[in-house]
């Protein structure tokens, strides 16, 4: 967590994840080149550099689709959380593939000429007004620029320096970059009869990514109990909250609170937003007595919303009490890390 930074905090799960990821990436690139080279007569096989350029583009696009799908998939079913845990490595791997595609394209199509490659990229013929003559390569360049910013700031160090809000906003630019990639493909290779890229590729990707995000969004909207009231709000049927689990409620329109029940059937409320990457704490669970974020395992004490020493993250806490035998919550947040009593409304005899 925030107690010092290392380049990569390796563990067995990350090593297995990266090993499988790169085995898949290399297999996809090699298979793409081999199949492409075998389906046309030997004399008419495209140049090796073009085959590699295409294979990098195809593989990068598949990887981007997978990366953008893991978030909503893990929200919809926590069994997919292992895909999300090391997603930043998948993102940086994607950036390596996309950069290689970009550099190959810049070198082969814009290099070795009378104008330097970057000048050529931005001054070549075509227009931004005609779809058929659209200059699609600058679209890829700007997408790559966003991916670079994301890859360069993917480390937790930058999350701490920029703050979770700015960091999150920066990384939400991935959707802008994804849009640029879809345009780059649709206005480039898809318009060329010399390309193998099928018309359905961007639409299939958009259907998967867009569909999963839409379902996840609807699920998230319906998930929390939307509560309102005066100073104290009743939490109905608290016994339905599982031990070591939580219920997320929404108050004041957009503020989400996670009400956890620990192993001793004590209840405590903390902010639903993890300080690391704004993960949904209420979708996590309590591991060894600590609230554990489902995204990257950041932990907080239910008693005061603070991470256990030596870590320093703190989230807001909320007061709860019993009022006429009912469990109630004060929706006004206490400063992050503020201790307040946990509440035990009944004795679970199960």
């Amino acid at each position, binding site marked *: 967590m925030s107690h010092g930074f290392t380049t990569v905090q390796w563990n067995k799960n990350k090593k297995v994840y990266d090993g499988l990821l790169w085995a898949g990436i290399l297999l996809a690139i090699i298979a793409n080149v081999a199949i492409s080279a075998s389906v046309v007569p030997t004399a008419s096989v495209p*140049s090796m550099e073009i085959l590699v350029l295409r294979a990098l583009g195809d593989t990068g696009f598949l990887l981007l689709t997978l990366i953008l799908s893991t978030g909503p998939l893990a929200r919809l079913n926590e*069994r997919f959380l292992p895909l999300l845990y090391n997603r930043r490595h998948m993102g940086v791997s994607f950036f390596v593939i996309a950069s290689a595609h970009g550099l190959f394209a810049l070198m082969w199509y814009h290099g070795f000429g009378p104008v330097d490659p970057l000048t*050529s990229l931005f001054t070549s*013929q075509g227009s931004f007004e005609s779809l*058929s003559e659209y200059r699609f390569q600058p679209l890829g360049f700007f997408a790559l620029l966003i991916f670079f910013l994301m890859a360069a700031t993917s480390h937790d160090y930058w999350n701490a320096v920029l703050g979770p809000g700015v960091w999150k906003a920066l990384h939400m630019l991935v959707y802008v970059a994804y849009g640029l990639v879809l345009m780059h493909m649709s206005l480039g290779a898809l318009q060329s009869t010399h390309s*193998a890229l099928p018309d359905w590729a961007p639409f299939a990707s958009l259907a998967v990514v867009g569909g999963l995000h839409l379902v996840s969004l609807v699920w998230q909207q319906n998930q929390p109990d939307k509560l309102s009231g005066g100073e104290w709000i009743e939490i109905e049927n608290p016994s339905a909250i599982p031990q070591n689990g939580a219920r997320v409620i929404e108050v004041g329109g957009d503020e989400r609170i996670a009400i956890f029940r620990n192993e001793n059937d004590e209840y405590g409320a903390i902010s639903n937003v993890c300080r690391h990457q704004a993960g949904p704490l209420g979708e996590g669970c309590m591991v060894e007595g600590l609230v554990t974020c489902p995204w990257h395992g950041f932990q907080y004490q239910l008693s005061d919303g603070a991470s256990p020493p030596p870590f320093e993250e703190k989230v807001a806490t909320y007061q709860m009490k019993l009022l006429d035998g009912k469990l109630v919550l004060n929706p006004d947040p206490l400063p992050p890390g503020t201790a307040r009593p946990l509440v035990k409304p009944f004795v679970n005899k199960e």
Partner: protein
Amino acid sequence: MKRDFYVGYLPFPVGLKPLFRLLIPVTLLIALGTVYLIAEKTPAAGSGTWALDTTTVTGTIVMDPYPMLITDDRQDNPILLVQLGKMSAHDIVAPYAGQSVELTGFMIERGPWQMLEIESSESVQASTADKLTLPTASEPIAVSLQGEIVDSKCMLGVMKPGAGKVHRDCAELCIMGGMPPMLLVKNADGDKAAYLLVDENGKAVGTQLLPFIAVPVRLSGSAFRLGKMPVIQVQSKDVQALAGEVLAAFGPSIGLAGTSSFCRIVS
């Protein structure tokens, strides 16, 4: 019921293992299936070749309309000369204009077209061989063709494919660098033929055709034959971009039948 909650730095939950033993191969199969669906549609990229080994050729340097070498066995079908990269060989061979030389370079070949890529002035050696001259041009006829303007170096074998929208910027740089532009047309059978493009005075066409590169065009001009080499004299005002109507696919050429004697299939 115990929850199979995954925390990255803790041991992988036993309850999730069956799912991931299935999910990993299925994801890989979907990825490879998608790769197959894309890659198996790879179109043929033309029969051009670009030799990896050097060749030495003896002949006479001609500078107009483009740097060419006339050889004994290709007196009626000169070899186009270019430099490494996207640059004309003009500056290298100009001092030897009209003289016999030995040129060493990498041969680029597609159909009946030949091109030699030379590296530097060290690729040229003066020769005592007999001087040869270009064949006389045939009587020009008016033609109107539909096709795509490409740079000759990439189209003849350096880039495969060396045409189409993705290749447009490369073709533009090549032509800016002095590569001879060509008009690529298809006949009704889908065969492709290439014509060397020159200006209205029969000289290098320069950069006037840049706005029309790699898009479908209708081109009107005077076609003639220089030996076996088909050439079209054209001005930019007689080129009409068809982009927006037929996108990057160019249709059967118009009037190709009338120029069949010029037609040189390249793929």
